[in-house]
Each structure stands twice: as structure tokens, then as C-alpha cells.
């Protein structure tokens, strides 16, 4: 029992430490974004840096994965405080809210339909081609 609690505490402590490291990376990213003066936010720079560190095996996946996976799993939570900001535009929303929501919902539906349909079509056509080439190979080998 005591061992179980201790391993749990170590796990949570590990997550906190890893989140702190990821936070550090995003701070470095923010610094780069300020220094270079290009419209790419610091967090995206941080993402690129972490990817390269992983790719070139400077950072091991286990060093960041439990904290990183936790952050991704709970990402919706982090959007909530800014979403409550809708409150500050109560007046505008009262007068033009319906038009704004109709515009956004229709446009979002169109974007998702087009993006999903194109990706699916390309994926299917490529799969068909793969199946065909596999058949061709099998026929060639059976002859």
C-alpha cells in the first residue's frame, strides 16, 4: 500500500516536472518569436524545438511523454477562461449575436465538409491504387 502511494506521488511529481520543462520550452519560443519579429507565436517555436530535440535523440520520449500527454488530454480545460470572455461582448452578442453565430457555424460546417471530403477522396484513391499494385505483383509472381 505504502509503495503504491509512493509510486503514485513520484508519478505526479514527474508530470509536474515535465510540464515545467515544456513551459520552459514555450518561454524560449516566446523569446525567439520576439527576437526574430516574425508572426509565428512562441508556442509554435517551442513545438518545433521539441520536435527537433526528439528527432535528433537529444531528448528521450520518456522524459516528456507523461507530462505532455496529460497536457494534451486536458487541453479543453485551458481554453475555458478565455471562452468566458464572450461575456465582455454581451451587448454586441445581444444585437448581432444570431447573425454572427449563423455566419460562423455555416462557415465552419463548409470548411469541415470540404476538408474532410477532399482528404477522404485522396486517401481512398490512393488505397485503391495500392490494392491494384499489390494484385499486379501477386499475379506477376503467380505466373
Amino acid at each position, binding site marked *: 500500500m505504502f509503495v503504491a502511494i509512493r509510486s503514485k506521488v513520484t508519478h505526479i511529481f514527474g508530470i509536474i516536472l515535465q*510540464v515545467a520543462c*515544456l*513551459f520552459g*520550452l514555450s518561454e524560449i519560443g516566446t523569446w525567439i518569436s520576439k527576437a526574430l519579429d516574425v*508572426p*509565428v*507565436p*512562441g*508556442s*509554435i517555436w*517551442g*513545438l*518545433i524545438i*521539441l*520536435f527537433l530535440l*526528439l*528527432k535528433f535523440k537529444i531528448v528521450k*520520449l520518456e522524459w*516528456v511523454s507523461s*507530462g*505532455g500527454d496529460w*497536457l*494534451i488530454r486536458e*487541453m*479543453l*480545460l*485551458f*481554453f*475555458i*477562461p478565455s*471562452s*468566458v*470572455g*464572450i*461575456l*465582455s461582448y454581451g451587448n*454586441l452578442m445581444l444585437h*448581432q449575436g444570431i*447573425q*454572427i453565430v*449563423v*455566419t*460562423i457555424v*455555416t*462557415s*465552419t*460546417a*463548409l*470548411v*469541415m*465538409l*470540404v*476538408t*474532410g*471530403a*477532399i482528404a*477522404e477522396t*485522396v*486517401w481512398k484513391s*490512393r488505397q485503391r491504387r495500392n490494392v491494384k499494385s499489390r494484385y499486379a505483383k501477386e499475379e506477376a509472381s503467380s505466373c
Partner: protein
Amino acid sequence: MLMWMGLVMTVVFYWGGKTLYKKVRFVLLNPMITCLIALIVVLLCTHMSYSTYFSRSKLLTDMLNPATVALAIPLYRHFDVLKRHIAEFLLSLACGATVAVTSSVLLARVMRLSGSIALSVAPRSVTTPIAMDISQTLGGIPALTAVFVIITGLSGVILGPLIIRVCRIQSSVAKGTLFGMGCHGLGTARAFEIGQMEGTCASLSMVTAAFITLALAPVLVPLLRA
């Protein structure tokens, strides 16, 4: 104690909303929406101003940056799959970004939204920091864009699963890209609920879509409004 109220309240409502959603699985009871409504009701009842609430729950907003950095992890895990599907990505995202900007501007005109609001709607389908930046470039109101980004996210989280079902979309790549392109970070979070591969495709789409829109919007929007 009071300092932490906003933070504790948000976490408790979010956790409650999540538990409720797991039990009923009804799209409109998305934890994001139930939590948002509960918070707005509490703020209105206790007369707490938004800026007070925001500063007291700032720790949560600050977590968005490391969470974005963490997206490098699934990207690294599934990188070869993504390389294999590069055609799907680039083609669907280029079309998606064009549709996003064009339809926003045209629909805003049909709905008779005023100029600065229409300009603030245009970049709404990309992740908040980049959307606000584009809004500034176009001459919109960045703070308003932030709100539109959230409305986009909420509507996409509800619409996405419906579109996947109605269009009978089967591939993880298509499911991921439609979430990442359609509704940025919120969509990415939702796509990770479907699966690792869907979520990774969504996060990659979100980043790519942001860059495409960054280049596209300042050219396309003046043309559409001319």
C-alpha cells in the same frame, strides 16, 4: 483563498461536466459548453467581473503554451504516417483554408455584419494567437477575433462528429484534418478523444492551416471585399 476561487471553480465545473458527458454522451452536453454556461451563470450571480475571473484563473490559460509545445510528442510518434499522407494534408488544407476565409467574408456580407466585425471573422478558423495576429493585419479587432475563434471551436466540436457520420468518413487522416482545419485547438482536443492518429493529424493540420491562412488572408480578403 479568494485568489484561487476562479481556478478551483473552473476545474470543478470542468470535471463535473466531463463526468456528466461520460454518463450521457449527448453532443450538446459537451463538457466545454456545460462548464462555460455554469461559469457564466456564477459570474453573473456573484457580480464578479470577467477581468477579475480571468486574472484569478490565469494559470489555466498559461498552460495553453506548454500544451501546444507538447503537440510535438504525437507528431514525433506518428511522423512516418504523416509523411505517407502528405498529399491528403496539403490538398485538403489548402482548399479548407480558402473556404474558411472566403465563406466567412461572404457570409458576413450576406448577414450584413459591419466592416470591422467582418474582418474579425475572417481568420477565425485558426489557433487564437495567430488568428489575432491576422485580424490585426487585416484591420479587424483582435479581442473580438478571439471570441469568434472560441465560437468556431465550439460549433466545430459539435458539428465534426455529425459530419463524420453523415459523410461516412472512414480514414483517420480525414477525420483529423477536418477537426484541425475546422476548429483549431478545440478540434484537436476533440480529435484526440477519437484516437491518437486522428489527434495527431488534427494537430498537424492546425499548425499547417495557421501558416496557410497567415499567407492567404491578407491577399484574399481585400479581393473579396472589393
